[in-house]
């Protein structure tokens, strides 16, 4: 792993400060972050909890690729992408992305690129649990 990239896919609670500390760089003027939070509803239905499962080895490779592409595309210094696996409750944090850059525009763009791409390409799946059942998100037409 390159020294300006931190990738994690773990069953423990994600640590925001760890991501900030990783990307913090004395040559940088700012850090943009995106912190996912588990929502209590989806399409009007109350969500009780979520479960994330992953093709872990491939997911880590895909996360790494996103980080590398972000470093190529944008004038940024460091990037951390941490994602949780397993059961999450409402308000828990499934994902943290943090990006540092000398000028803030680049870190905003890279952060948005990373979360948008993650949601399209990384083999991680979310199951939503309702009072009356459970559903794999995005799975059905």
């Amino acid at each position, binding site marked *: 792993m390159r020294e300006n990239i931190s990738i994690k896919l773990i069953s423990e609670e994600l640590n925001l400060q760890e991501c900030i500390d990783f990307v913090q760089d004395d040559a940088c003027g700012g850090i943009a972050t995106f912190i996912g939070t588990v929502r209590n509803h989806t399409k009007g239905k109350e969500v009780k909890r979520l479960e994330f499962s992953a093709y872990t080895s491939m997911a880590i490779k895909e996360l790494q690729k996103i980080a590398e592409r972000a470093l190529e595309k944008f004038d940024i210094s460091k990037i951390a992408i941490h994602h949780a696996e397993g059961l999450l409750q409402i308000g828990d944090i499934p994902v943290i992305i943090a990006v540092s850059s000398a000028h803030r525009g680049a870190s905003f763009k890279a952060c948005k690129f990373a979360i948008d791409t993650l949601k399209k*390409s990384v083999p991680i799946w979310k199951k939503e649990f309702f009072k009356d059942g459970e559903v794999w998100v995005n799975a*059905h037409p």
Partner: protein
Amino acid sequence: MTIKTLFFGITRDVIGKSNIEFDLNEGQSIADFQSILAKNYSGLTDIKSYAFAVNEEYVNEDYIIKENDIIAIIPPVSGG
């Protein structure tokens, strides 16, 4: 040749297993394999779409499956 196939997310629920070994002929593509899957597991047709990865990299339909490949069925992802 015997090819190991991994199932995730909804496809794992539909198939009822996390992995299956398939007997394939040399020269078969991912498209060929998808037909075999669809024939054997009709439940898969209820899924919006699914992609394939071989050895942890996305591949397209034309990919020719090789000995020792590990195929993964990737239903629509929903991380983040």
